[in-house]
């Protein structure tokens, strides 16, 4: 078993591209990844592709072969759907396929088209990541579900809207200079607190935007990288996935995400690392509270301690554990099916030293990506390490 190397990565601009089809977006990201890798498309043995709402957004199912075609690859292609963790799940399968020797060269990625729908339609499309019978019909939106988790967190541990605002401020600051990011501008705590409410206690600036975009990466075996003299010094050394009850009301607690804990435990053991080894993390901050739950769930902070990590400077770019140097979902944007592999792309870039925030983490060798589906009924965690 050899750990797959990340030979190349590609991203579109994340933002509003309502006239661009997902095949067009994925072609841009996929070709960028192949070019970055210097890999011949004829060598690609499979495409692992994440997408969530293609049927609703553009009346397009069966997107796997469509996306392979879009990047000039003639190989088996499968779409993975796990809500917002769709391409995280696709990545895990691709990693396992390289590891078990089934393939030497794979393209993994994802795309989502969202802004061609109006806000109410998008809200409805995203809501079906929750339990339709018992949650969606009770008026629960996706922001509403995370708001229930935030309110439960505040009730159990304390914390305030100001603490959450500090997370939004941090992630917006990190996005400045990220050419792929939807919002490349700073905000203040006051901006966040003064914004309209979406679902109390979460306001507009606690929520990620509605985003179009695509991501891709080329994974290769060590032997293929060596034979072709590829510059691929970053490896995926750990993978983990966790699951939980679909509906919040069936969980043991509303302010914990055990699926992320299970995924992290598995991925960290797989890589042979512990939380203290991690230099930098990209976590699934679809809402500000989600970043808190992710960091606590993965064991970086005790329960109740993650809420102040941004305000205390621990997770800012010059802190001990820089989190979401890309800008996160919050400022970089969240084209749902593309997000998991976009985290891989950002971390690879950080570890290679060609990221817009690389100067802040110039000695980083271990990165972790956390991708969550729904209210974390599914989660994947991946560990990336500099080899050599």
């Amino acid at each position, binding site marked *: 078993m050899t750990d797959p190397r990340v030979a190349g990565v590609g991203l579109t601009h994340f933002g509003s591209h309502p006239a661009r089809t997902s095949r067009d977006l994925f072609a841009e990201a996929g070709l960028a990844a192949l070019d970055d890798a210097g890999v011949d498309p004829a060598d690609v043995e499979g495409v692992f592709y994440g997408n969530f709402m293609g049927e609703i957004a553009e009346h397009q199912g069966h997107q796997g072969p469509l996306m392979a075609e879009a990047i000039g690859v003639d190989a088996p292609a499968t779409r993975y759907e796990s809500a917002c963790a769709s391409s995280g799940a696709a990545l895990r399968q691709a990693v396992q396929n390289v590891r078990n020797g089934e393939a030497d060269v794979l393209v993994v990625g994802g795309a989502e088209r969202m802004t061609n729908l109006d*806000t*109410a*339609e998008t*809200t*409805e499309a995203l*809501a079906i990541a929750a339990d339709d*019978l*018992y*949650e*969606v*019909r*009770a*008026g*629960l*939106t996706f*922001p*509403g579900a995370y*708001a*229930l*988790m935030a*309110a*439960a967190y505040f*009730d159990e541990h304390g914390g305030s809207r100001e603490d959450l605002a500090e997370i939004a401020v941090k992630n917006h600051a990190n996005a400045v200079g990220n050419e792929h990011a939807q919002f490349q501008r700073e905000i203040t705590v006051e901006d966040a607190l003064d914004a*309209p*409410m*979406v*679902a*109390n*206690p*979460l306001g507009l600036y606690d929520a990620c935007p509605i985003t179009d975009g695509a991501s891709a990466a080329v994974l290769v075996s060590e032997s293929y990288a060596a034979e072709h003299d590829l510059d691929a010094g970053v490896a995926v050394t750990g993978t983990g996935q966790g699951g939980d*009850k679909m*509906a*919040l*009301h*069936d969980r043991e607690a*509303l302010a914990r995400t055990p699926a992320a804990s299970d995924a992290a435990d598995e991925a960290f053991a797989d890589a042979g690392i512990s939380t203290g080894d991690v230099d930098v993390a990209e976590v699934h901050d679809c809402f500000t509270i989600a970043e808190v739950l992710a960091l606590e769930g993965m064991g970086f902070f005790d329960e109740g301690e993650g809420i102040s990590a941004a305000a205390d400077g621990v997770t800012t770019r010059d802190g001990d554990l820089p989190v979401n140097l890309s800008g996160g979902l919050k400022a970089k944007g969240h084209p749902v099916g593309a997000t998991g592999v976009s985290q891989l792309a950002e971390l690879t870039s950080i570890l290679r030293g060609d990221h817009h925030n690389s100067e802040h983490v110039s000695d980083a060798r271990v990165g972790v990506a956390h991708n969550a589906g729904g209210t974390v009924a599914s989660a994947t965690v991946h560990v990336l390490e500099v080899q050599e």
Partner: protein
Amino acid sequence: MNDGHDEFLDAVESGDGYYLECENGHGSLPPRMVCPHCGDRDLTETALPETGTIDSYTVVHVPTPAFADEAPYVTAVADFGPVRLTGRVLADADAVEIGDEVSASVGGADESRSVVFEPR
């Protein structure tokens, strides 16, 4: 039609609400063939407690199209002992707090029927 769910709502609406209880005392909501907490397959309909307690709530300002005329409204998760329910609270936002006692009922019609909570 949604077998299991529709019958559950009918029962809650008529004041005879129930949940599914496994041999180990775990609660869950229908339709189910297996307890989601322990895998037990022996599930019996057990009377839903008359009163629940709000565990968490939110005021939804940006709704789906089905609730466009309702916003802002309150949706809560309430604890009914062995089982929790999610539902809209039939009260103004500023009148709801975690820990409030509620009873379960049913609101809406046809495809939009769902659990609602009435303050007690």
